[in-house]
């Protein structure tokens, strides 16, 4: 499902070269819930960005569903994201000029999905925002905005859901609500989830925890999940020296 081969990411800041990811190999089979943890700057967000095709690796290749992202141009990447990948950000990133309902509607309209209105309503009902559908993002609380963002991420029934610190800007009650939603999505829709967080308790809600340190794999730990998940192919990760 998600495959990274010898992926490195180096950025130039002034005259210095900064290595964010250092020859990373990662394989996330379909249906897994991978939590990526590590201190700030360990490369978590960059990893998610590479998987979503928001960023290009300096070396190596990123393969999603058999398709090499490094070979695609911006527009093909955008279409691929629209079809296969949902993204939830720490800062929600709703389009401020659209209502909650319209924010959910947009990915479906772009993908020309059938009966998008009906589905947008259902998704918002599912995340518990039935009565706030026609509010603008600025009229919603952080937790509500993040739930709209999840509904939006699910709009095209993506095979992969990427969440970058989705609770980082929320209080604990709202954070729990959001994580419950993600776990629910994983369980009911069999969506492959990659969650970046530095909250150990949150990370433990996944099946596998990948710890990054200085852009390299520090450890990969499996958590006893349900029977179904255990039966699936394993997540593998390594950073050859």
């Amino acid at each position, binding site marked *: 499902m998600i495959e990274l081969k010898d992926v490195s990411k180096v950025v130039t800041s002034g005259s210095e070269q900064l290595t964010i990811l250092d020859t990373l190999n990662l394989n996330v089979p379909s249906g897994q819930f991978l939590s990526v943890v590590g201190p700030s700057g360990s490369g978590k967000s960059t990893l998610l*960005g590479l998987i*979503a095709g928001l960023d290009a690796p300096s070396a190596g290749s990123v393969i999603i569903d058999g398709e090499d992202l490094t070979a695609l141009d911006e527009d093909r990447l*955008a*279409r691929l994201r629209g079809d296969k990948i949902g*993204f939830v950000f720490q*800062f929600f990133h709703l389009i401020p*000029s659209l209502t909650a309902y319209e924010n959910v509607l947009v990915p479906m309209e*772009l993908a020309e999905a059938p009966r998008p209105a009906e589905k947008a309503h259902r998704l918002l009902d599912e995340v518990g925002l039935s009565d706030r559908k026609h509010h603008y993002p*600025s009229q919603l609380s952080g937790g509500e905005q993040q739930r709209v963002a999840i509904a939006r991420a699910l709009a095209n029934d993506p095979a992969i859901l990427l969440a970058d610190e989705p609770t980082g800007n929320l209080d604990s009650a709202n954070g729990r609500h959001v994580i419950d939603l993600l776990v629910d999505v994983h369980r009911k829709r069999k969506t492959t989830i990659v969650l970046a967080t530095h909250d150990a308790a949150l990370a433990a809600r996944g099946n596998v925890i990948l710890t990054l340190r200085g852009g390299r794999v520090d450890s990969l730990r499996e958590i006893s999940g349900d029977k179904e998940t255990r039966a699936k192919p394993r997540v593998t990760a390594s950073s050859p020296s």
Partner: protein
Amino acid sequence: MNFVFRMAGREMRASWRRLVFFFICVAIGVAAIVALRSVVQNIRATLVQEAKTLTAADVIVQSDRPWDDGTRAIMDQSLAAFPVTARTESIETMTMTAPADEDKEIATMIELRALQPAFPLYGDLVLESGRPYSHHLLENRGALVRPELLTRLGIQVGDGVAIGGQVYTVRDVIVKEPGQPLGVFRFGPRVLVDYDDLVRSELLGVGGRVRYQVLLRTDEASIDPLIGTLTEALRREYVSVRSYRETGDQLGRRLGRAEDYLSLVGFVIVILGGIGIWSVVGVFMRRKLKSIAILKCVGASTKQIFGVYLIQVVGLGLGGSVLGLGLAHLAVESVPPGVVVGLSMEDYGVTWSAVLQGVGIGVLVSVLFSLIPLMESRRIKPLLLLRQQMDRPAASGKKTGRLGTIDVWELAAAGAVLIALIALASWQAGDFEVGLMVTTSFAVVAVVLHLTGMLLVRAIEPLGRKGSFPFRHAVLGLSRPGNQTRMILLAVGLGTFFILGTRGIEANLLEQFRMELEDDAPDMFLVDLQPDQVTPAEERLMSLGAREVRMVPVLRARVTGVQGRDVTLQGYEEVREERRLRREFTVTYRDHLEANERILEGRFWDPTPSSEAEVSIEDDFQEDVGIQVGDMMRFDILGREVGARVTSIRDVEWDDARNGGFMFVFRPGALANAPHTFLGFVKAPLDSLARAKLQRDIVAEFPNVSIVDLRDILLTLHGVVEKLALAVTLVGAIALISGVMILVGSVAMTKFQRQYEASILRTLGASGKTVRRMVLLEYGTLGALAGTVGGLGAPLLTWVLCEHLFDVPWQPNLAWSLYAIPLTALGVTIVGMATTLDILRNKPLAILRAE
């Protein structure tokens, strides 16, 4: 596609407030263009009317021979294809007249014109008695005469005059007569008689110069094809065909200048509107970074996103244009008819062509000026969403102060925009060269401003570590990535450039018009004074109240040969092949240059007379024929052969012909013995009674002299120039006001970029005073720099256009440029401060949350 439209609609619904200014810019631009167009059209209509009055017809067909049946048949056949709505004939001839009372032993030359009932096809014949002109006044040997004739012959209305063996009764006196071309010397006073009376007389059979004319009225569009067809059909018949337009030359040149100016101002206002649009779209796109990144993240293609914003731009352009049409209509309606004398606005209405033109320009300019900022959307990477400070412009990834990577598409777009602007400017100014010049100067100033911005940022960057807190932050504000530096410099600099430039041209044109109006030109001419009459006539004229008298010797001359470096013409036959040389010239001799003359080459002679003939030629002969300084020319002056060496080449300002203009001027001495007469340039008394007495007394004393009174024509001309000057002033004011409004808006728009920083500083404890000082320094610097570049560039624009388009002497307005610098700085600072008030008054949290 559906998505694109739906998304554009939603975006507009949410952000229309921020785009109101866009809307206003388009509206002002379109309103200005449409209003100016109607002013231009009305001026043109007024002057066309004047020009038609001068010929009394749309088209005149003229022949020196009576119309024979064959010619008439050809003419009728040719005219059948055109919508000729009126046709009348007249005959003009020069003849002598004398009082019917044979006791009075006096006779004088007159210009006789015989009219059919339909005359005049345009204009009114005004009579001294005040009664309307009717052809009945001419029937049964009636005559209408100019007042000079009465004074010259010592007769009154009701008396008889003998013309061609018949006696006509003077029935009234002509005050104003249509169908007399400007600036054409007359050989005697005009007398109008009936066509049939003249045909029945013996006059036409006796030889002498007779002109047979057919006057036609048709619609404007048919004039040129009609002339073409007639000229072709009658080419064997010694017939000339011309339209009223050729007669209106003197008016035409001034009208041309005023029209060019108005069109140019219209275009400049549109460009100013475009700058406003560009600044709004620039700011708008920066605020849309996040939305665009999100759209890309959820699967929108670059094309779709571009489409979403392009549709908004087109929609706003359309709406703004419609509002502009309304504004134009209101503006034109609300001008009281008395204010714009003579610019009758009754024809103005929102015509379909005006609507299409206005809307077309509005939308085109909206798209053109939005294109480059809109292309920023292509560069926005969805990766920004993973960063925290994402709605800061820095995230665009492009550093100000560095050229960055060259983007082929953006270059192509810039090229396309430039070409479209040149086309638009050429269309509006009606001239490709002008479009090119205006657009090029626009591009040059924009590049200079851009470089200035880059240099400024680089130069002050090191200062950001020293000095007081407001100073350091002002420096940081100017040099931080995604700042408003470039925007304000470009918008205000270009705005200042164009506003000052058009003001400069306005001042130059008005100066020219003022000179013409104040110009107390000679308004009466004495023709055919004999050399021995010069001194007594001068004395008599002064005693009769003339304000100034100048006597100029005139000779009739033909060129019979040129022996030159580049051109040799042996004898009259060869000279005749040279179009410019073949006519008979009126020449003069004098020892000085006139104010309207300038030596281009060679040297003008010393005042001492010389027996060896020297001649100074007009520069057309050098350009068109190739006659050079040092060449020998031969002239036939009333039968005497005179050889003269060309010693100088002159430029003559024909517009300023108060002292006459001569193609050939000779050195005094050689022609002293040649037969010649004098032409008197007289500034006659302004009082009409004194004027009449002067004419009467001069004619009585010097019966061989003809008097031509040009006062009426000069007054008409002055009236026209006054109207043009008024129109130019009005339009200049419109340009100034709308330009300043757009600039204020452009600067105010940048507040959206800086209120976030200001709010954070407020949150961190910066006092209102600190924030105000920062703004003062930032905006003051930008205003001063923009004012300097724009102000110094403006005289250049004025110079180029005065020289190449308006053909008026350029007078620099450097003082204006110098005032412009502090004024622009002050203006930009005040607007900056005013928009900051908002930030200082509101709680910072409100702004931070809204961000």
